[in-house]
């Protein structure tokens, strides 16, 4: 079963702040979802995992400058801007 501490640990990993009542709800739901996932405990397939169903290969373009977004376009959806840059939150407290 999932306890409150685990829900808070996961919400911290996912960077989603939860209110106390949300923690309680998710605790019950996570338990049920993990029970659903645990059906896979019935088998232990001795096969290679498939990450992608079609073979992928890197696509390279010629090393020549192409069209890219100009600064105004790149910044237009951002709320916090300063001197032509995105302004983000402090990383070091």
């Amino acid at each position: 079963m999932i306890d409150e501490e685990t829900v808070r640990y996961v919400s911290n990993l996912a960077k989603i702040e939860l209110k106390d009542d949300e923690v309680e709800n998710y605790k019950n739901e996570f338990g049920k979802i993990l029970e659903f996932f645990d059906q896979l405990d019935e088998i232990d397939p001795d096969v290679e995992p498939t990450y992608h169903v079609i073979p992928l290969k890197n696509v390279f373009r010629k090393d020549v400058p192409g069209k890219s977004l100009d600064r105004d376009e790149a910044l237009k959806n951002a709320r916090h801007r300063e001197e032509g840059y995105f302004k983000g939150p402090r990383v070091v407290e």
Partner: protein
Amino acid sequence: MITVGEWKERLENEKAYDLVSELIDRIRKSKLNAYITVTEDQALKLAEDFDNGKKEGKLAGIPIAVKDNISTEGVRTTCASKMLENYIPPFDAHVVEKLKKEGAIIIGKTNMDEFGMGTTTENSHFGVVRNPHDTGRVAGGSSGGSAAAIAGKETVLALGTDTGGSIRCPASFTGVYGLKPTYGLVSRYGLVAYANSLEQIGPMAGSIDDLGLLLEVIAGRDDRDSTNAGRGFTYSPVSKKFRVGIIEEMQANAEVKEHFNSFVETLRKFADVETVSLPSLKYALPAYYIIAMSEASSNLARYDGVRYGFSLENLDSWSRYFSKVRAEGFGTEVKRRIMMGSYALSAGYYGKYYLKALKVRTLVIEDFRRAFEKFDVLISPTMPSTAFRIGEIADPVTMYMADVNTTPINLAGLPALSMPIGESNGLPVGLQVIGNYFEENTVLGFAKAVERNEV
């Protein structure tokens, strides 16, 4: 439903401008809530261009609705989320470039489950989409808006996206046609990512031929998408005596089963039909959800409230700001999936969940490979039931179970469509037709054969 043929017939005697105006008027008055944004000015301008002989192409003068997780330059693309409520992409998705090149008239962006996460389009920041057959019921999800728009005659064509059944489920619930193409056939460039290894953009329409036409337009090589197979598609439906496998493990309630079985009886008159067992499908549904949630937790990490999307007035420390933005910007189902995905990928659980799910995917692919050695197409009911009442299913796991017949196809990356095969108590029942890799013309050809025999 309005087919492309019917629309073209009307275009011979009437102005595209008037027809598009009529369509927009119907959308404005509609109670279905199929659209998040109606691009009225742009659509009328394009209709005028068509009337003036300035637009040519395979879709010239044809209205199309685009699901709101596909980027449209200058037109907001919300993914039905508060997180992207005001986001205006500075570029078009590959498929939108192609639509424009072929003269299509984009009339709006359709409602959906937030970021494609859902089976009913109840998880939308912009409200639930209603089923045209019974407005007290859901239209299915996550491409519920696109399906309802076709069924409600609010567009001719539509684009949807399908990660675990999101085109086929609403097609089934609303009685329209929807095709999930082979993984890699259609470029994902400009599709707002939810689960990279599973999702595909696909056509939704009022007839088989219209699905084929739209797929022909959107398929093709795109070097900007590393998951693109680099292949094109020409619509040429296969005609033959089909060898058909009914997948034993696929599920349905009594009502749908009865309808499906009577369809099979008629089918036997013109096709070789046998049942086939794919034992790995027992584990496909949990494996699908583990992979989808894991990929979602990684993909949705980009919503940090800095470069675009929902943001807060005051910048705090990075960790607190990031956590608060996401707490407020995402809805309940999205948070649930991101957190479960983070858990499945976390230290100690990767092997138990994620890696195991990827191995189940190998088993599923092997089972399908064996089945296609014997059969041209495999069939099942698309959904185990007809459309739910709005609010009928509250428990997430019960909701996930509804995807049992559609998710295995995404795990394997195969093409599959849903087409209507009549109604049960006034609600449409969908048939799922699955083909081998890049065998879209076999799938579409079989679907046409079904139609011709009026099954």
